[in-house]
């Protein structure tokens, strides 16, 4: 539905985005994640046909955003960073206006406006002047104007900024409910948001997309699968020696590490294991402990959060010379699953 290839934008001497490439299938929600100033808004503006790209192409529903701008404009709903609202209009009047300029047929307008009002929870504020609305409501009107003409593609630039926690949840649910029939691109710098609403994520850093994938894949890929922590009680003296072989040869377990006993009560031992992506050796670990006649005190999965991924991908600034940053990027774009254990690649960033 959305195909972006090698998109670059240069403002004067600054390169805002460089070789941005990604695809979004119909019905998916792509989260565009990156620190402030990374080029999220620029990419969105190009997608919406507001800015031309310096090079590269972007196609929406098969239409080039620049060459076939009018066709694209009919098919997108766009919420810019600041919601584009006319303060002297009522909510209803404004949505009617937008429906009209977006080309909704006269007979359908009232129905579409009603639907958008209901979906965005604006029913009680229909007749209110926009200038009298709170920031949260304005943001909702902004979303309503992006969906009022029922576009196949919706582009939302930071849709939950300025909302209170309850409204954020409502907006996220709204966005999720739009997926399926609509294809959505949303940008954010809030990590849980992507986790909660998006099916796909593109992480952008300094104008370059450093990773795009399904969220689960991305996290698995970049952290080398799930981790397990297991705590065992063994009050038999001299057991320590046999403990080493306790977890040997469990399928799917890649590495085992005995953790320091400093903070543990007496006779307790704790391990951390890393599993291969896609495997869940938890059951076997538990049965081994039980078979050995030991007490299982704790067993839990340690899943890398998107936050870890995000930080790993975007935190190069502290150690940056430009070249190193580039090497960093290249590594991450082509991660090898066996990168961790076998010989390290040439440009491994310093830990």
């Amino acid at each position, binding site marked *: 539905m959305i195909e972006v290839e090698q998109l670059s934008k240069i403002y004067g001497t600054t390169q805002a985005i460089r070789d941005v490439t990604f695809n979004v299938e119909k019905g998916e929600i792509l989260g565009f994640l990156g620190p402030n100033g990374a080029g999220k808004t620029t990419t969105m503006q190009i997608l919406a046909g*507001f800015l031309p790209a310096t090079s590269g192409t972007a196609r929406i529903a098969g239409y080039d955003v620049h060459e076939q701008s009018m066709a694209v404009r009919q098919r997108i709903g766009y919420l*810019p960073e600041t919601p584009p609202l*006319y303060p*002297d209009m009522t909510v209803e*009047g404004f949505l009617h206006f937008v429906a*009209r*300029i977006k080309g909704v047929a006269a007979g359908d307008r009232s129905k579409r406006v009603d639907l958008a009002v209901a979906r965005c929870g604006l029913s009680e504020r229909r007749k209110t002047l926009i200038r009298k609305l709170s920031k949260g409501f304005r943001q909702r009107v902004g979303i309503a104007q992006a969906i009022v003409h029922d576009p196949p593609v919706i582009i939302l630039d930071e849709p939950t900024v300025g909302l209170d926690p309850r409204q954020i949840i409502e907006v996220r649910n709204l966005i999720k409910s739009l997926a399926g029939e609509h294809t959505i691109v949303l940008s954010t710098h809030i990590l849980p948001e992507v986790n909660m609403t998006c099916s796909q994520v593109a992480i952008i850093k300094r104008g370059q997309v450093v990773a795009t994938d399904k969220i689960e894949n991305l996290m698995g890929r970049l952290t080398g699968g799930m981790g397990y922590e297991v705590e065992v009680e063994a009050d038999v003296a001299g057991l320590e020696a046999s403990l080493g072989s306790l977890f040997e040869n469990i399928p799917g377990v890649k590495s085992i590490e005995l953790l320091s006993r400093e903070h543990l009560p007496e006779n307790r031992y704790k391990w951390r294991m890393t599993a291969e992506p896609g495997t869940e050796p938890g059951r076997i670990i538990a049965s081994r402990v039980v078979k050995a006649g030991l007490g299982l005190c704790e067993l839990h999965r340690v899943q890398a959060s998107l936050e870890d991924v995000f930080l790993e991908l975007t935190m190069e600034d502290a150690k940056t010379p430009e070249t190193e940053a580039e090497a960093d990027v290249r590594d991450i774009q082509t991660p090898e699953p066996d990168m961790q254990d076998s010989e390290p690649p040439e440009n491994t960033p310093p830990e």
Partner: protein
Amino acid sequence: MNTIISNIIAIYRKELQSYFASPLALAIAGVYWLISGFFFLYILLGPDGILAQVAMREQLGITDPVDVPYQFLQFFLSVMGSLSLFFLPMLSMGLYAEERKRGTLELLATSPLTNWSVAVGKLLGVLTFYLTMTAPFLLYESILFSAADPKMPIVIPILGHLALILLAASILSLGMFISSLTENTFLSAILTFALILFLWVMNGIAEGVTGAMGSAIGHLSLLKHYSNLIQGIIDSSSLILFGSYIVLGIFLTAQSIEALRYKRS
């Protein structure tokens, strides 16, 4: 074609509604009514007003008849023309500057609208607001002229007001272009005022320049063509001049919005 007209109407209605809902625009209209109303009475009844002058001529024994309604209309329309120098830039200043400041330009630019249909809709909207600002004076005049004897031919006030509309449309169109250049409404008003003042006094500049150059500059003067029209002189060159200013303003606005999208940083 239908969608273009529908788009123009959508923009037009939006503009019109925002003028009537805007306290600033209503304040401008109020001050305009106050000042124009004052001049209306002053020109008619003031100590130097037209009736006083006629009375004086009679006392001095000058018996040439004076066409009072005609004289009055000319005075009044030229005052209205001069006043519009100050008031029209205030109406046109926000046309695009406000949209840029609020970010709503992004909405318009990502909707299936052409730049020029937005510009035409906006111009029609602000022009309509200006017309409603001048409408009360039509009532005053009709009361006044109904008392005139002999009756004044209706074509003269119609032509005079048409000239005022054309003048206003030209100024607003150029003002709209200037408004599209900046996010600052105040700056837009000042620049528009400077430009209009320049076009207004071009007549005077032309007199200082000799030859073909001088007459060419003279032709561009708004004042000259406006005075011709309110005197009842229909000259196609005047109509073409006003038309050109209007089209030029719309054209430049559309171009400037297009350019804005191409080099915005």
